[in-house]
């Protein structure tokens, strides 16, 4: 098995104390860093396949680390953050972090996020021509969407929205990222558009729009497309 190397950046020894054995037991190679500077150095020199980053570091803000790392690497970054620091989460995602996990978290959740991120990374930039999950089919060549065999008619924006979410399946996409990709950079603050279009999209592809299976809301942050 081709072993992935994960860089864990956290200054709390208690967190490292369980992350290290858990990740090792799951088949990953773990390297540890407890400061921002150390993290940046290790990210550059030891070529990790994924970084788990706590935002509260003793020497610098975790967001700075994301910026520095993104300057030279597209390595997936999963941010560990507390629920009440919403702005920080969004800022991290907009800076290039791939996903986040709220503290306290179960190890299963983290492992799932790690797998998704690694899979996305492996898929690289090649856009799949077809996506299929739980009866939902998105044919990106013919631009046809069907649900349980029946074609679903989407408007252009709805389709673009769905494709963007599907391409990031399993990962959180911030409001800002969605707005910028579907409506353009000028509309990154027009949250209202997004709410309306996501609502319409859910009505068309979900069994129960009030209890969505595909498009989950990440409160205050964005949306996550669930493919499993």
């Amino acid at each position, binding site marked *: 098995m081709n072993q992935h190397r994960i860089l864990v950046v956290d200054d709390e020894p208690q967190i490292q104390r369980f992350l290290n054995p858990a990740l090792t037991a799951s088949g990953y190679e773990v390297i540890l860093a407890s400061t921002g500077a150390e993290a940046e150095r290790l990210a550059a020199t030891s070529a990790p396949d994924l970084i788990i980053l706590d935002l*509260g570091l003793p020497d610098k803000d975790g967001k700075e680390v994301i910026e520095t790392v993104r300057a030279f690497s597209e390595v997936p970054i999963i941010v560990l953050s507390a629920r009440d620091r919403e702005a920080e989460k969004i800022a991290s995602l907009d800076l290039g972090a791939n996903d986040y996990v709220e503290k306290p978290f179960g190890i299963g959740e983290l492992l799932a996020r790690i797998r998704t991120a690694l899979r996305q990374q492996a898929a690289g930039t090649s856009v799949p021509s077809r996506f299929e999950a739980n009866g939902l089919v998105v044919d990106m060549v013919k631009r046809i969407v069907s649900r349980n065999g029946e074609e679903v008619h989407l408007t252009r924006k709805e389709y673009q929205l769905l494709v963007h979410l599907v391409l990031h399946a399993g990962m959180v996409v911030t409001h800002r990222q969605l707005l910028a990709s579907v409506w353009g950079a000028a509309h990154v603050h027009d949250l209202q558009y997004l709410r309306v279009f996501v609502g319409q999209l859910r009505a068309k592809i979900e069994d129960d729009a009030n209890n969505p299976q595909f498009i989950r809301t990440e409160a205050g942050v964005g949306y996550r497309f669930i493919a499993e």
Partner: protein
Amino acid sequence: MADQGQKNRPDPDKLLQLAARETRGKLTVFLGAAPGVGKTYAMLLRARRLKEDGADIVIGLAETHGRVETAELLDGLEGIPRKQVNYRGKVLEEFDIDAAIARKPKIIIVDELPHTNVPGSRHPKRYQDIEELLWQGIDVWTAMNVQHLESLSDVVTSITGVTVREIVPDIVLKRADDVLLVDLPPAELIARLKEGKVYLPGNAERAAVGFFKPANLTALRELALRRTADRVDDQMIDLLRQNAIEGPWATGERLLVCVGPDSLSEKVVRTASRLASGLNARWLVVSLTQTNDAGGETSKRLDKLLDLAERLGAETRRVIAQDFVEEIFRIARRENVTQIVVGRPKSARFANPFRRSLPDEIIKRFTDIGVHIVTGEEQGTPYVPPSMRKRTRLELAKAIALPVAATGVTTLLGLAASDIVHAQNLSMLFLVAVILSAMICGRLSAVIAAGLAFVFYNFFFLEPLHDLSIAKPHQLFSLIIFLGVALMIGDLAGRLRDQVARSRNQAKNTQALYEFSRKLSGTARLDDVLISTATHLHSTFGTGIVILMPYDGELSLQTAWPPDLTLDGTDMTAVRWAYEKNERAGSDTATLPQIGWQFLPILTSNGVAGVLGLSTQNRAALGENDDRMLTAILDQTAIAIDRAQLVRENAKTAALQESDKLHTALFSSLSHDLKTPLASITGAVTTLRQLGSRIKADTRDDLLLSIEEEAGRLNRFVANLFDMTRIEAGTLKANNLPVDAAEIILSSIERTKKLKPGIAIDTSIAPDLPMVNGDASLLGQTLFNLLDNATKYAGDGPIAVYAKQDGPEVAISITDQGRGIPPKDLDKIFDKFYRRVKGDGRAPGTGLGLSISRGFIESMGGTIKAESPAIRKRGTRFIIRLPVANSDDEAMP
């Protein structure tokens, strides 16, 4: 066409008036021609009807004059008790305005509009009381007879021969929302009088016989009817304007009324007022003076006159001009005046025989404008022009002595030099004397000097000598020219001198104001601004100054100069009036004029910021010049207050933001401290559950241990929070008993060692350590907190714990050898949530330990303090002192 559209739009001014009226109470005036026509009766009858319909109507004051029918009407109507007022030993009953405002009915009846209040009341006049009620949004019904109207008072006097003392300004009636005429034909009124149904106050009874003549009553009735009809007209016009209906209202007439300081002008104003009201025309009253005699007699007279004009509903304007006719012409053209009203005093013809009177000149100048000339004898105090005003004796002596001396000396010089200087050239020397007199003592001296020079020159230097006769005709000619030149030069020099004096005075004022504003601009604190203002005003006007500003919703004295000034209750009423109404109050005003203060609102861009009080006890009223100075200073003060308040607001905002930031930091720190152990526990548990089989046994053990440790940490944190809450809520009760401190110290050390194995703690406890008064568990927790704290910051050195008796106390010290605490932070370390190292990357802890420790120790009656550095520039020492338990305490339960 566009013009047409413009015209048909509702007049915005009219709509604004309407809007103002809607928040104001409505004034209804029951107008009668004479006493006894039944105004009060009519008013009460109407009130009863409204009351029966459920209206909230109360009687503020109704004069029944002992008439049974009227008194019966009062039955069942709510009344406000009258106020008893002591005045010169007599107890008088007055309308209680405060009670009325407190009751705040929808409608209140306050009879006798022209009534003059007892001195010492809030307002001198009842119509001012009513104005305040209206302002409070209460509808008022009141009653008056037409003879009390200001513009009619002289007419009434001329008709009836009775002088009307209690006067109501026309503007009151004009502003009334409704005027109801209570009419009774004269014959019926006289009949009622004969039946004794008309009440007349004691001293009026004598006049009554003359007053209640059919002719008088008919004339008064006509006045009342006409007034009411005028109002109906006005209302009609208002209605048309509000609804933008084209109508024939615009008479287009505009009156210009020219007045001066002479006593006839008052009559001119009254006449013009009637004329304007008859023509339904707007009228402008212009006062004309040649100089700006600020603060002088002229100015005061004009003030009074323009005040009267304003009360009668005129616009007023003050004009200083040299050429009256030209100025009047200019104003008339600009204001589209159609008629001019001007007075010609009968005595004027003699006053200035060389000049044509003003009316004549106006008539000559205007060809297309009607000119009304009001003639009459000067009434009241005749006007004395300022130049003729009495000078002080010294001034007068100087004004005469100087020209006598100057011309005398010139004569002597001339005599001495007559051999070398030709007599004709000596006239120049006399001119010098005239100019000198004019420059030093003004125009009067110049005229005297010119006269004397004329006589002396003639007497001593012109042939025949020592004789006032003149020999040669050409000498007569030159002598007359000399006199003319002397008079002219003297006059000019005198004027120049006056102007110089005025400019100097103005420059002084400007300089003072400039100094003041410079002083103010250097102060940013409100207190300094107020003190600067008070001291400056005190030195400018030489009188006591107070400044009041709202504080906690109450106006309170902020600054006084001299500092021992105080205000009494009546003064405060005036202060509040000035503050709330943005109007002057106190002496020289219509509100509480009897008090020894004048209060002026300080108006800033944010409204009235406060009130400035000027003591008028030892000082005459403010002159116009003083007034202007005061206004300028107040403006400066207002700006400075604005600025000071802005500075203060800024500081407050900054402090608020700082505290906001602190709160945010606190919450994030709390959340971090709670979540980190939770995250560790959750992470470890889920790892064990999901991956347990794949993990080595010793790692599993470590994970389990970490769960135990983190749970313990969480527990301590929560316990700390609870303790803090108990201390803050004041529910912490130490169970203080004699306890063995040594035992508690040892057990705390043991507990610490269990948590942090391998920590070095040096312990030294005095063998004879007495029992202390305290709570064993609280003391134990405190010591544990301090030890825990020490282990976190100790560095590598050992922790030292000492305990010994120190007088009536036991001192326990815990010393670490860490980095220590900078002196500036020593005070803060006992504050709640205070942690010296900020951010995530610090030693774990709640920031509560020390704060809780202090709470505990204080509840045991002890003290706790920190010292740093403790040893060799390093470390921190905490010292706890607890009272030694004595036998008395031991006996206590």
